[in-house]
Structures are given as structure tokens and as C-alpha cells.
């Protein structure tokens, strides 16, 4: 085995977070302020997955006060504490960049369909003003 692969494997998390494109997720991120450490949650929709193995990253998009915000997280970063999948969206693309063109009710379309357990239609809507951290 190549030494670079070994080095990368050593740094990978043993249990990498599991998620899919179109999932509504809560990403817990470690934040250091001075000598204090706290956990911030960034929740949104996974719209893209890039790279593979040790270098894999995913992009989470959410709407904050009418403005779209995207963050890219490396999944093996020690700063990422956990990725919690709230619900899955039925999508037909690997990259949901079309979400950038959508506003308001348009953004909820893809979450209409649950993967396994069908949820009641009212709960499916993502509330952009929730979880403002």
C-alpha cells in the first residue's frame, strides 16, 4: 500500500458520518472561542458531495433571513462532531445546484418525498427561521 494512502487512512474517522444528497441535516461543528469550546449546529440541505476517501467534503445549504448560505464541510475534520440526518429528500441529481435558483416554496419541493417513512406533508417543510445559531 502506498504510504500516502496509509497516512490518509490513519487520519480518517473510524465511523464516518453517513448522509445522502438531498438530506436535511444538522451538522455539529466545534468552535473555539479563546480557550472556551462550544458546539454550533448548522442545519440545511446537503446539495453536493465532492472528493472521496480522506478528502471527501459535502456542501450544506440553508436560507438565513432570505439569504442563501452554503458551507462546505470535510467529513473527516476533527471539527465536525456529528452529522444528524433529520429527513431524506427524494432527488434525481448528485449535485443540487438548481436549489440556488429557487426561493421560498421552491426550495421545499425536493423534500416532498420521504425515502422510507412517508411523513405528513405539513412537517416536511423546512422552516428557515428555525435553529438560528
Amino acid at each position, binding site marked *: 500500500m502506498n504510504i500516502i494512502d496509509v*497516512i490518509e487512512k490513519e487520519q480518517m474517522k473510524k465511523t464516518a458520518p453517513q448522509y445522502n444528497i438531498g438530506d436535511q441535516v444538522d451538522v455539529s461543528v466545534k468552535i473555539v472561542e479563546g480557550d472556551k469550546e462550544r458546539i454550533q449546529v448548522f442545519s440545511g440541505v446537503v446539495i453536493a458531495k465532492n472528493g472521496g476517501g480522506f478528502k471527501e467534503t459535502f456542501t450544506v445549504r440553508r436560507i438565513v433571513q432570505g439569504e442563501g448560505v452554503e458551507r462546505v464541510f470535510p467529513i473527516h*475534520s*476533527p*471539527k465536525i462532531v456529528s452529522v444528524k440526518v433529520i429527513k431524506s429528500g427524494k432527488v434525481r441529481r448528485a449535485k443540487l445546484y438548481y436549489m440556488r435558483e429557487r426561493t421560498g416554496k421552491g426550495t421545499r419541493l425536493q423534500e416532498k418525498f420521504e425515502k422510507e417513512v412517508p411523513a405528513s406533508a405539513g412537517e416536511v417543510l423546512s422552516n428557515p427561521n428555525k435553529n438560528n445559531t
Partner: protein
Amino acid sequence: MLSGFLGKKIGMTQIYTGDGIIIPVTLIQAGPCSVMQIKTVEKDGYNAVKLGFDDKKRKVANKPEIGAAAKAAAEPKRFIRELTPDKGAEFKLGQSITLDIFNNVKMVDVIGITKGKGYAGVMKRWNFKGGAQTHGSTRHRPPGSIGSNTDPGRVVRGKKMAGHLGCERVTIKNIDIVKIDKDRNLLFVKGAIPGHKGSYLILNKVNVKTIGK
């Protein structure tokens, strides 16, 4: 100890710091090296230590190489360079030198041979702008005028033109050492270094006190 060390470029990857910051690193297989020859003022007119790195198959080595290596009771080496010893440091023939020489060293100068690019035009070799790609222009990549007319009637010496690019000895100074892995003889340095994967490198220690003067 020695002014530097020998190594081989393995390739690039990333590592995380404790704070979760990603640093781009180049992995260098550094040592172990053998002392092949010790030069002294009395005998050779100057002090030097000849280090050898990376064993060569005996089948490939020629007789002088095998003979020189036999003096140090070592295998013939692929990469042999002279380095300056520190004052008062003592070496034995055949002594094996490891990454320990980088204890407390924060930076290195890396000397390597850049990747060969062959015969390259002025845009690639000297970053000329070239001409317009569109608007009816057919002058896409040539250099344009290379001088005046009758006066001076010649091309100025040193004019940047097309020619061979790369395969050149280059020193990159003050590269941060990110991590030292003594078990596997690996040196992690920040950023890129010259050469292709597997190319040999000279790693000169940087005395941090002298930086910024």
C-alpha cells in the same frame, strides 16, 4: 551534526492540525543515509561528509561504485551528495544517519530538480501574454517583436525567447516542517516542492535565528 540531509519526494496530501485546520503537505522519504566518505582539511583541503541514500542493486551498480561503498561497508547508493558537518561533530564511515538530525529544526531549504517541460513557448516559459484568441486575430501565442531595426541591428542579449524549460536545479527556501515521523523516516513539509514523485532532494537545515535579519 550535518548541515542537511537527503531525501526523496513521495507526493502530496493533506493533514489536519489539532484545531481542524487542513495543511497541504508534501511527504518526503528522508533517510536513513549512510556515511560513505569523510573528507578532512588535511587530506582533501576541506571538511565534508559524503552521504549516500537509497540502496542500488548490485547488479546495476558498476565496479567503482561497489568498491567505494565497500570502503564504508555499505551497499552502493543511488543518490550521493556531500554535506557540511557542524564544527566538532564526529562521524564514522558507514554510520547510519536518521531523521534525528531534524530535532528542534523548524524549517528547511529544499533543493530539487524541477519537472522537465521540454521545448516551451514564451507564454509558458516566461508568462508572456500572447495575442487575442478571437476578434480575427491569428497571432495567438508567438512572442511578437524581439527588438528594434538597424539600430542596434541585433537582438539584446538575454532576450526572453522560447526554449527548454524545467529539469533545472531549484532551491525553495524556508519551508516549514509540519511533522516528523521517525518510525517511517517521513518528513512532512508545508506546500509544494520541486520535482516529480520519486525525485531526489537535498534538505538543508535553516537556522531560524538568522531569519528576518
